[in-house]
């Protein structure tokens, strides 16, 4: 294990502009996948599945809710790193 050397080569992801490119390509993929629902026949077991873009919306809402809820839970659950060693 060592420190980075000053003449280390710059990586593609070191540039914040490229990180933004990654994010916007995810956005683009999501748009394509969302629209794709119009172009095939969904074979479904449950009614909810047949709603347009159901899986995408469900995934997005589930993740945002998960993270925000977990963040609130920290207020109750979080203790110092040495909590059990004291």
């Amino acid at each position, binding site marked *: 294990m060592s420190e980075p050397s000053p003449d280390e080569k710059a990586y593609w992801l070191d540039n914040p502009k490229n990180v933004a490119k990654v994010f916007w390509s995810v956005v683009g993929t999501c748009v394509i996948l969302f629209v794709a629902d119009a172009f095939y026949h969904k074979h479904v077991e449950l009614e909810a599945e047949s709603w347009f873009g159901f899986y995408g919306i469900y995934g997005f809402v589930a993740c945002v809710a998960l*993270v925000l809820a977990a963040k609130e839970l920290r207020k109750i659950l979080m203790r110092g790193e040495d909590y059990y060693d004291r």
Partner: protein
Amino acid sequence: MIADLPPGLILILGAFLVPLLRGWTRNIYMVALPIVGLASVLAIPDGNHFAFRLFDYGLVPVRVDSLSTVFGIIFHVAAILSVIYAFHIRDTVQQTAGLVYAGAAIGGVFAGDLITLFIYWELTAIASVFLIWASRTERSYRSGMRYLVIQVGSGVLLFAGALVHYAETGSILFDKMGLNGTGTVLIFIAFGIKCAFPLLHNWLQDSYPEATITGTVFLSAFTTKLAVYALARGFPGTEMLIWIGALMTAFPIFYAVIENDLRRVLAYSLNNQLGFMVVGIGIGTELALNGTAAHAFSHILYKALLFMSMGAVLLRAGTIKGSELGGLYKSMPWTTGFCIVGAASISAFPLFSGFISKSLILSAAAHEGHWITWGILLFASAGVFHHSGIKIPYFAFFAHDSGIRCREAPWNMLLAMGVTAALCIGIGVWPQPLYGLLPYTVDFTPYTTTHVITQLQLLMFSALAFGFLMRTGLYPPEVKSTNIDFDVVYRKLLPWLWNRLIIEFCGGIWAGILGSSRRRIERFIERLYRHHGPYGILARTWPTGSTVLWVGVMLGGLLLIYYL
């Protein structure tokens, strides 16, 4: 012939030769043992073997059928990969314990009766604790003790349940039991402890991150999946398991999001994955049970791969805390790549192993009309991508550059990770061989347009949510912390209560005894003082005249009596 030994015993007995070997011969021998074991499992015909009677019990040490074989195969594969991953280790205790542990788990899945199962059940507990203690720290020692108490306790419950079950039914065979009678309830709880049911789960998150780098890879494969197998064998179609499993998929992911120790994040996500398997057992249809077996198979591989990659990070960077890592893709590109394969597999991306196994369970839940369960599983699927699929690789290898520059993982770790990653992709691309191993005939096509697109929608929108939360700064940062879970009950609350009990209750009694005896002694001394003290009646000085008077009275009295 060595292959005629019962499965599992090859590894258990073979492990005791490990201390006699040195260097490369030891490594080759250690990897040869599970390979021979695997060959013997593939060769052994279906049916009961080595059956004999012990007292009144008809024991069946080996029962081979499709359910035990699929677990037997993946346990051997996991043992081979874990041994390769640990080639650089020169620690006889860990190496012997790892093989005995794997052998015990293999023996357990082939056990045809509850007594044999109990013996292997306890052996997995005792052998595996050495993988935790081998860290040789105070923390790992304490954690291992808690682990051992809970695991052995589970075995004791299993044994008690087996005896009660025998008394109730007259059978000691390990077959489908269902929840009827005290015996089966005890056995169910024993399985539930090892399977990390909600509230019985904390031994997992407590101990796995404290084990050695290579030990955790072993641990991740066997104990909990032995329990999944046992549940699938004994309690398929038990409806309660649907709810237990659904709860298991959901609550650990909240902890996984806020946990800083990345190996502990994986332990929470392991718990969540077990939930999917438990739901499959609860539904109990052929499709669902196939799903459980297939998911256990692919899960063992990708979970081992994720633990391997985090182990490599811990080895090279010296820490596994998300708050201190970042930017390691520059130093460890291969490990990064393998970790991403594991992450894609656990997230069930199409063409990776999780996709072809988890979809069986979700389809079974939807097909049987368990729509609430299905909704929870879908939520958990999005969540698992969030914390295992994105969080693990992101905070270890990307995020902000921590400035840590280290060497790539050793070649043997890369080899183990490479083979495991290849298997994850292989199973995902070509699921038929795995489907062929499953207990029932598979009538399921994972790669339909609907499955692929809906799954990609779920995952990509979850990724979008992560990006959104990151860019808006809503995502909680990684901070050094401990998050209290249910184990706070036995690690803090009960010890505190016990201390209060000792101090308040016992202290009160002691003070009472002490006080009353002191009072009694004081009273005694007081009485003594009253009679014998300086002013006591017996200590008074009397004038001589009065003594003479009293002598006269006495003599007069005597004379009078004599005269009469």
